[in-house]
């Protein structure tokens, strides 16, 4: 072998090693970059959840027991709380879909400019504090609030309607707060649907209404189900609005957790409720993913 050939072979080997180490360096960089956020999630989310849920397996005397879980399934009070929680969450989700879907459809048919302007009306309330909005609803809905006084001065009603401090008030307030969570993913999905697809259906002989149900609606489903999951899961654990607009008469799960701690300072019982809430949310996500394929939303 000549010297030149020998040098060339050595260089090839060196290059191979350099390329390999370059590849490792890049991988290590990526891992290093994601390290801070991974650590943060571990410390402020996972560990507290683990610690809190471990509390649920101890009774008030400090002994290991399933007492807290048994009570959730046996106590009438807890059962009522679960029923109310589901009742409100389902109503809020259904109303959000009925209001949000047509709105998104209308927005998605607009020019970019017009849609962007109208989206501001969705986003400004979204960016406003939940507490501020809830109190605003209280002002509007109470016995001598704007809605009741207007309806009465127009002689539509004789007695003021009971709009606040009950289930109705909680649902109205929550729908307003949850609506953007439905609209944002749904609107994004609708906007990305190729208008030629609906045109193709119509061009091939389908009436506009049939084309909507055959083509547009199925294509909007991933966005719709993402919105439904968001609204439903956020509603399950919602606290501020039902607490203020429910007037103490509406007890959702989050309120029950709070009162169990502040009134009875029973950490075990409240963390058991928390664990059940978390499991329900996870089951919900898993179910929606099975039915609608939420993962498709992120894969495209």
């Amino acid at each position, binding site marked *: 072998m000549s010297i030149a050939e020998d040098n060339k072979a050595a260089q090839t080997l060196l290059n191979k090693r350099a390329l390999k180490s370059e590849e490792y360096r890049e991988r290590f960089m990526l891992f290093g970059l994601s390290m801070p956020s991974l650590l943060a999630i571990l410390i402020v989310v996972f560990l507290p959840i683990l610690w809190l849920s471990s509390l649920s397996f101890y009774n008030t005397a400090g002994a290991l027991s399933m007492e807290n879980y048994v009570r959730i399934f046996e106590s009438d009070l807890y059962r009522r709380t679960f029923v109310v929680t589901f009742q409100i969450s389902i109503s809020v989700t259904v109303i959000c879909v009925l209001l949000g879907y047509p709105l998104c459809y209308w927005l998605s048919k607009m020019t970019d400019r017009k849609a962007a302007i109208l989206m501001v009306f969705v986003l400004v309330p979204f960016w406003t504090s939940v507490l501020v909005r809830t109190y605003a609803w209280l002002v509007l809905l109470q016995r001598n609030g704007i809605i009741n006084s207007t309806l009465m001065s127009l002689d539509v009603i004789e007695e003021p309607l009971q709009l606040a401090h009950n289930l109705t008030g909680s649902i109205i307030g929550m729908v307003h707060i949850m609506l953007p969570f439905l609209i944002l993913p749904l609107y994004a999905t609708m906007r990305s649907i190729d208008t030629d697809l609906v045109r*193709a*259906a119509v061009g091939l002989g*389908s009436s506009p209404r049939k084309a909507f149900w055959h083509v547009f609606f199925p294509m909007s489903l991933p966005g719709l189900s993402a919105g439904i999951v968001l609204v439903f899961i956020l509603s399950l654990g919602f606290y501020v609005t039902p607490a203020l607009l429910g007037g103490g008469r509406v007890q959702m799960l989050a309120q029950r957790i709070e009162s169990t701690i502040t009134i009875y300072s029973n950490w075990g019982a409240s963390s058991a409720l928390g664990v059940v809430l978390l499991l329900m949310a996870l089951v919900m996500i898993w179910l929606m993913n099975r039915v609608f394929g939420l993962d498709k939303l992120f894969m495209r």
Partner: protein
Amino acid sequence: MSSNVQSLPIEVSSLCKAYGSIKALDHVSLNIAAGEFLTLLGPSGSGKTTLLMALAGFVRPDSGSIRFGDREVIAIPPHKRDLGMVFQSYALFPFMTVAENVAYPLKIRGVSKSDQKTRAERALDTVELSGYGGRRITQLSGGQQQRVALARAMVFEPQIILMDEPLSALDKKLREHMQIELKALHQKLDATVVYVTHDQREALTMSDRIAVINQGQIEQVDTPERLYREPHSFFVADFIGESISLPVTVTNNQAQLSGRKLNSDLPIALGRGGHRLVIRPELLEVTSGPVPKTANDLSGHVHDIIYQGDSVLVIVQHESAGMINVRVPANRAGQKGLPSKGERIGLALHPEDTIIVPEYRS
């Protein structure tokens, strides 16, 4: 797919559509014969797509008339026009299988499930995709998707099929292959096809006739050959094929180039503005001796020679008129006789190839 349905003629008269101050369609009239393959050809923004969408019913014209056979359709919504349509983006439904896509027009028309199946299979067979029915759309290549779109447009045996630049998303080789296939398919189908493209070569390859559209108006409707050899305006001559043009003066139907008379067998179309002599590089003849008396003499000195694979482009400096391009076949035999730079060569433009057009159509 033979059918007992007769294809329909299309009659467009005085169709207008304006977007603000822009006239997308300016009194367009066009007759398309039953069973014809007609291409709407024009640059982007010329109004060709607007015209197609008006035929489909997706664009509402301001005035005019569109007749399919003896049925006036201008106010009829798109889904009642019974058209087959192929879109530029294919517009296949991504959540349906290939077979479901193809059967969709049949499903809409209430055809029985078993009939849907056999007819969809037959349509897929026609576009050489038999056996692909169960596949997802995303599993197909661009060319295959294009063929599914075609099958879907013809499965219900429409009398008219509209196509909006259906091949523009394919790469060059596949596009050229599909052009031939589409042409063959049209001969099998008994349907009037209206095809939109901005690619003049595609239009020449496929069409029975081509309507050249510019600024919302039809410049010329003719067979590919007549459009190429006898354009009526400078726009058509320039848009179709390769050409260079030189200004000429026309008096009493007699054209002159730099003071020398031009012999032409072709009629000079009416128009506005000045006139131009249009020279197609491949129609010029390089003569070894003097240029024949009957032909127009465009001889000059060779300025440059460019090898382009299938041919050689020779750029000739004419004494008074400027640069003239001549295309010479690139076979070895032809290349042996190639002139060298600076050499004087004889160029003959025969009267039957001497195209003189007005600057603007009247």
